[in-house]
């Protein structure tokens, strides 16, 4: 390099044992959660599609899998048509998820991530490829040029994959729905097969490097935790390490309000520095998947995380029970049980309460009654884990406890009456009915929000 003073070395210098030890302790964030999720989603899709795709090709010209494998998969799915349907459904899911990522996450995850980090080959990358090849052939012992967050080999694979993915998607759609003429469909079959073949040739190396190759173990774990050790970054992705360090330095300078002249080499690793970007990252983000961080943290979960959990619970309820989750119906059963206990004759002849009574069975033997017991336990366990358990009156700052009690009672009567009138509350009708697209559920939901937003102005004194 021609510049007089270098703030950082151009290539990784040998480290002392202590430095290496300290650097292996510190962790840097490498992958965003969205990228990790996309990676594993992609991996599962490829596994499903390759295993069924190989069995779908029965034509003697293209057949890749042995007959016993084709027969085995056919038996698993029952018929070839079922297997084809599975292949198509998974493929369409894949396309939809990629489109959602591409459209909504374009700026945040894709533009920077892909175009700047994953596929842009620079001069160092080209040299890396040449030297790597020469080294494999034992023709050179030159050190490999420093690499950014993805090395040249990874970038080549990414280029191939990003070029082939649109081809696979489009030809897949053409084949699945027989778009255009027969000739086009015929070409689509060949292209689909060729594009997948190219990706698979790279995929073999990718999986081998990630899952088997010992030196790349850190890369594999970074796809689970999002973090790599600073030592790994320094040794394998030096240019990226430098970038992180320079950002950190700029951050420290901003924090201290000092504009130190450039050209001062920073310590590679020192525990005496003020909170650096690396440590800040670690405090805020990593290691992200520990039990403690997820369940014992006092903050609530991000709404979408809790929403997905709730949605999966609701889905499981439909699959297991054939109905959704609920609340108010369970309370009604408790009330009916009480009435039937106090005045059995009245309850069994009442036009409304008798709906909740089966002859010869307690009104308490229902799904919702037992589900509500679970709700209490689940809510308690969640609050207990997070340390949120306390006895408190949750009210606006300007009102007395007595006012709050009165409002709670009045609001509760309205809520209860409204829920029974509509045959469900926000859980049983809006949430569960909404998920199965019941028209009444959506009418109800919109009415709840309309009244809530409309009435809020009148109640602002009590809550704000």
């Amino acid at each position, binding site marked *: 390099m021609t510049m007089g003073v270098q703030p950082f070395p151009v290539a990784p210098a040998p480290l002392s044992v202590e430095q290496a030890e300290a650097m292996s302790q510190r962790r840097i964030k490498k992958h965003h959660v969205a990228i990790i999720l996309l990676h594993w989603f992609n991996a599962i899709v490829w596994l499903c599609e390759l295993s069924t795709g190989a069995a779908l090709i029965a034509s003697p010209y293209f057949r890749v899998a042995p007959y016993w494998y084709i027969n085995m998969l056919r038996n698993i799915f029952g018929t070839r048509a079922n297997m084809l349907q599975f292949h198509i459904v998974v493929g369409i899911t894949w396309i939809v998820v990629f489109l959602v990522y591409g459209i909504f996450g374009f700026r945040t995850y894709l533009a920077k991530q892909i175009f700047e980090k994953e596929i842009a080959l620079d001069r160092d990358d080209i040299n890396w490829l040449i030297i790597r090849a020469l080294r494999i052939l034992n023709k050179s012992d030159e050190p490999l040029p420093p690499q950014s967050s993805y090395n040249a080999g990874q970038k080549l694979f990414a280029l191939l994959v990003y070029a082939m993915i649109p081809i696979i998607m489009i030809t897949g759609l053409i084949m699945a729905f027989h778009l255009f003429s027969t000739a086009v469909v015929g070409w689509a079959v060949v292209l689909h097969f060729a594009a997948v073949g190219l990706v698979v040739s790279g995929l073999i190396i990718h999986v081998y490097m990630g899952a088997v190759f010992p030196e790349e173990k850190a890369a594999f774990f970074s796809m689970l935790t999002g973090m790599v050790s600073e030592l790994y970054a320094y040794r394998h992705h030096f240019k990226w390490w430098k970038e992180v360090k320079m950002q950190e330095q700029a951050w420290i300078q901003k924090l201290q309000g000092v504009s130190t002249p450039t050209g001062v080499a920073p310590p590679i690793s020192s525990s005496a520095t003020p909170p650096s970007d690396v440590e800040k990252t670690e405090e805020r983000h990593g290691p992200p998947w520990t039990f403690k961080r997820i369940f014992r943290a006092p903050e609530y979960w991000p709404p979408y995380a809790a*929403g997905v959990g709730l949605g999966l619970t609701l889905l499981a309820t439909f699959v297991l029970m054939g109905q959704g989750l609920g609340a108010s119906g369970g309370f009604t059963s408790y009330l009916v049980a009480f009435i039937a206990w106090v005045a059995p004759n009245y309850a069994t002849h009442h036009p409304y309460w008798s709906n909740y009574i089966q002859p010869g069975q307690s009104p308490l033997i229902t799904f919702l009654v037992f*589900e509500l017991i679970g709700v209490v336990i689940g809510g308690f366990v969640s609050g207990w884990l997070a340390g949120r358990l306390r006895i408190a009156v949750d009210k606006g700052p300007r009102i007395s406890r007595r006012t709050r009690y009165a409002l709670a009672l009045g609001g509760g009567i309205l809520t209860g009456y409204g829920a029974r009138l509509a045959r469900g509350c926000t859980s049983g009708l809006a949430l569960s009915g909404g998920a199965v697209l019941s028209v009444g559920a959506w009418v109800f939901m919109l009415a709840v929000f309309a009244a809530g937003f409309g009435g809020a102005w009148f109640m602002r004194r009590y809550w704000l």
Partner: protein
Amino acid sequence: MSAPYFSAFSLTTYLAVAVLLGFFFGFFLERAGFSSAHKLTAQFYFKDFAVLKVMFSAIVVAMLGIAYLSLVGWLDMSQVFVPPTYIWPQLVGGLLLGAGFIIGGY
């Protein structure tokens, strides 16, 4: 065998599964912060849209799951309870519940 499975359960299993599903229901509601009346009503003052986000992401997840499972023939939709529609009672009931929501804080 295709879902839903409730008809294949013994009574004990049925009720145990109910408690288990309720456990997760309560757990995720508490995780989302729905145990606080203040947080619930905050959305109506445009301060905290957690309720809307949680509710709609849950609906979307369950809806897509149901759509896919019935598409691939695993979930028999004819056996799934879809709340019947009674427009006027549900409209009025929703308005009453919404009013009660903002007064009582649910």
